[in-house]
């Protein structure tokens, strides 16, 4: 294993050297990265300023220049609105010489943005979105979906629970694209494993009061309630579930739990819950070292999209360096041919459909008594190999 890595490395270095020696072919004599994220909305803690910080860290660690030319980072707030996000990206590409997009959190925004990037033949490195659409029904040769997606969440969390005997499920679903996708895939997994979905309720995005939905769950006779939502919706629905005594009656499965959300919850409520994540800071020395640097700059431990944004940026810059160009087709080809390998991406590969497949982790949220510090929130239960977590490539998305 070690020796293979070494060979790969030296091969990459050889390519890099020859390319650098040759002519550097960079548009506008620079590489410009546009980070689009939610700076003040419900996903701000998940991929907002933290994603910008992560990308900036990657650029600095890379040395600030590539092929002797500067690397610039610009960022903007998409306010979780597809129209705002796509307008900014259009402006970046058409008017401000941006070469690649990073960040991208709300699935609705990512959908609109990848429409623009694909038309303009620019690469979108999707660090934080959950929907699987960007490598399935709206797949594109210019998408690279990092970090995680709904399939990995459903396979990671739902499958072991059904196999463990929890057969009857009820869903509280965020009523928009991401929630529907998550519920749909989780339902498929449950049915494949011989379980059944006894009901589902669609709660509007940003619902303040979940109590009536919780009552419906109680009346349903389910064994598990799956929370197919994220961010503030997840926190609020779980709090209400605990208040109405639901957590004593049945299991609650949070399908998408980010570290800041878990930190915001009372350990008495969230402790013991299973979830799937693409990254956890306290995994090994490598992840702890990076996370400590990140925390110093950002003020909080990284959520998985932060680590993903860093990893994606590094992989992109390495590809630019190796190929000697920022031409999207060439860079993408190289990114897919060479596996990312860093503190985030373990046993990873960027597939031809743009899906970055890597190790995922099944975690358990620690109870209050198990925590040694405020940042000590997850305990990794098992490693889920990438090919078990993610769905196979669709023929129509196989961009060679």
């Amino acid at each position: 294993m070690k020796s293979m890595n070494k060979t790969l490395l030296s091969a990459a270095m050889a390519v890099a050297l020859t390319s650098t020696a040759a002519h550097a072919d960079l548009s506008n004599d620079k590489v410009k990265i546009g980070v689009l994220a939610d700076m003040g909305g419900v996903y701000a803690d998940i991929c907002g300023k933290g994603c910008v910080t992560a990308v900036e860290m990657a650029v600095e660690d890379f040395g600030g220049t590539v092929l002797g030319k500067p690397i610039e980072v610009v960022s903007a707030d998409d306010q979780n609105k597809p129209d705002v996000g796509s307008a900014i990206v259009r402006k970046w590409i058409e008017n401000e010489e941006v070469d690649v997009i990073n960040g991208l959190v709300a699935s609705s925004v990512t959908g609109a943005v990848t429409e623009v990037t694909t038309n303009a033949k620019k690469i979108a490195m999707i660090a934080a979105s959950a929907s699987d659409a960007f490598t399935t029904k709206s797949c594109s040769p210019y998408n690279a979906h990092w970090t995680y997606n709904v399939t990995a969440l459903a396979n990671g969390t739902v499958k072991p629970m059904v196999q463990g005997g929890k057969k009857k499920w009820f869903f509280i679903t965020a009523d928009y694209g991401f929630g529907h996708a998550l519920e749909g895939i989780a339902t498929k997994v449950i049915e494949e494993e011989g379980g059944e979905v006894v009901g589902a309720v669609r709660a509007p995005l940003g619902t303040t009061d979940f109590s009536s939905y919780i009552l419906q769950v109680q009346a349903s006779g389910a064994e598990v309630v799956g929370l197919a939502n994220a961010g503030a919706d997840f926190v609020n629905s779980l709090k209400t579930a605990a208040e109405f005594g639901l957590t004593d009656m049945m299991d609650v499965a949070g399908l998408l739990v980010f570290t800041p959300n878990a930190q915001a919850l009372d350990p008495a409520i969230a402790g013991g819950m299973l979830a799937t994540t693409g990254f956890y800071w306290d995994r090994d020395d490598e992840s702890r070292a990076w996370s400590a640097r990140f925390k110093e700059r950002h003020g909080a431990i990284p959520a998985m999209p932060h680590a993903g944004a860093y990893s994606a940026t590094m992989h992109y810059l390495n590809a630019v360096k190796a190929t000697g160009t920022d031409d999207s087709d060439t860079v993408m080809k190289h990114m897919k041919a060479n596996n990312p390998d860093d503190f985030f991406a373990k046993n990873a590969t960027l597939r031809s459909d743009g899906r970055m497949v890597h190790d995922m982790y099944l975690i358990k949220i620690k109870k209050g008594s198990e925590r040694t510090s405020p940042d000590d929130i997850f305990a990794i239960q098992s490693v889920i190999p990438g090919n078990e977590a993610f769905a196979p490539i669709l023929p129509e998305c196989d961009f060679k």
Partner: protein
Amino acid sequence: MKISKLYIGLLGVALVAPFVMYPVLLMKILCFALFACAFNLLLGFVGLLSFGHAVFLGTGGYVTGYLMMNTGLTPELGILGGTVAAALLGAIYGKLSVKREGIYFAMVTLALAQLMFFVFLQAPFTGGEDGMQGIPRGYLFGLIDLSDNLNMYYFVLAVFLFGFWLINRTVHSPFGQVLKAIRENEPRATSLGYNVNDYKWVAFIISAALSGLAGSTKTLVFQLASLTDVHWHMSGEVVLMTLLGGMGTIFGPLVGAAAVVGLQNFLSGGELGNYVHIIMGLIFIVCVLAFRGGIVGEIQKIVKRNFG
């Protein structure tokens, strides 16, 4: 004489602008300017504050988007379809709301708009929170490729000028004179034998149709229709544009739209993004407290005082 020189000058600026500034930003300004002008027809010239006008912007956008994606119509027909849909909705909503006055009118329009918001959120063809994405710009009259930003810009400019001209004509027609009479003194207009509600209704329909035209055009520019355009915050934004520019003036909404869109564009990049709401709120407060005439209104006052 003076006025026509001003118009020619502005037109000249508009024609060369896309070579100096980013065309998509200019198009956005023009679309919102048309929307604000249409809104101003009601607020500034009839005295009706609609707090749900975004519904017409959004309806135009969604209908045009649907037509462009599913029927293969040319863009001008797609836009026409969106405009007609907004006009029809305006006819229904106007009929229901113009009998009310002041705050009640504002609240009824808000409530009616929320009902359509629900429709657009739930209807399968709109894409819900994701919006309608990847709408083609198409070929104007089947000939001119609008995916080119410059072509698109001149088309949007033409649409805007048409709308602007129509509003001007309406305001200066005998019909417009009656509207002003209603604004100034409604009981007197009634006693003069005018059916006040019918006049308001027609003005409402024109305003809705032109708002729909603005929304349809905007959808083509951004190739996207989304819930933002039907949200009540958008209704608030158009009030801000009109108030800032100067309600009841011809150029006010144009100036206000340019200022607000320009400000958002300026703030959207970088560190200041967080301050968008704070600054917009402060503008509201300052406008209401210190200069209710808006930018154009205050300039007119100064001009009148010094040169009148």
